């Protein structure tokens, strides 16, 4: 019974969440600004819109990216190692542009 209630409440919670998160537009990742300055690049701008058009939500959430601002500590090193944007079938594969094209994200 408890499990059912929890499941139902989760369902109800997730319904507005999906409507909220769809159409997020551009997300700017501007933390680590010091390091970005040293590297001579701008903050990474992530176009949530164009990704929504390409893949379903469940492709990235919640396994690759947690659905919470600031919950994903994304670094280029982690991307290179195959996490986050650099996941094996994303920007570390032939399916998307490669990681070394800095200016495609860091604008």
């Amino acid at each position, binding site marked *: 019974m408890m499990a059912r209630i929890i499941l139902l409440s989760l369902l109800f919670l997730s319904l507005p969440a999906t409507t909220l998160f769809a159409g997020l537009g551009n997300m700017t990742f501007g933390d680590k600004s010091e390091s*970005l300055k040293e590297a001579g690049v701008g903050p990474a701008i992530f176009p949530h819109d164009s990704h929504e058009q390409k893949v379903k939500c469940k492709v990235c959430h919640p396994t690759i990216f947690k659905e919470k601002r600031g919950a994903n500590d994304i670094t280029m090193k982690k991307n290179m190692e195959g996490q986050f944007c650099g996941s094996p079938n994303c920007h570390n594969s032939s399916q998307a542009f*490669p*990681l*070394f094209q800095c200016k495609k994200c860091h604008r």
Partner: protein
Amino acid sequence: MKRFYNAGFLSKISLLIAIAFFVGYSITIIVPAEAAKTTKSSKKAAQKIDPTDPSSIIYLDTAGKVAGKGDPDKPASAAVKAGRGWHPRAMDDQRLPKDRYGLIDWVALVKGKFIAPKPSLDPNFQEMPPLSLDVLIPAKGDFVDDVVYPHWIHTYWLKCDVCHPKIFIPAKGQNNMTMVGIAEGKWCGRCHGKVAFPLTDCSRCHVKPKKAKK
């Protein structure tokens, strides 16, 4: 045994015999005719060995026809052209070391002693030994591993003046390299991604973890 003598079996046997007879007969007819043809063409061709003439024997294929386009300046046959191409199966059979993209790993090739190319055609040529000097190039961002640049493999393949002083100023810290510039084809990007392993292989250069910043 009885079931072997039904109508189907007999008809198959007769058909087989008929085919065998037909083939044998046609061979006996064709073979002498062909032999006669080849002797004729070879006799004809023997008289003509003129490299400027497209119908000369050296431009004829085994059937006695003009091979290729009949132009002495162009390769004689399609086979020559095909032989020039890169053959993936042949490359696989060589068991050359490959990187994770399936490209030839030119470093493993040397270190694993798969090949030992000569430095010069002159037997008295004294080659300068490769320079064993690793250069630490700190990554600009705090969250990326530093680069360790090995002179050794680069000087194994290349002369110093390939890179110095035009692409890299030969002094530590004087080349203000950026990954953006490299991706645009400057510095390492002059070769890597073109003739050397691609820039997508981040961890082949970014090897040395940074000490944690406080």
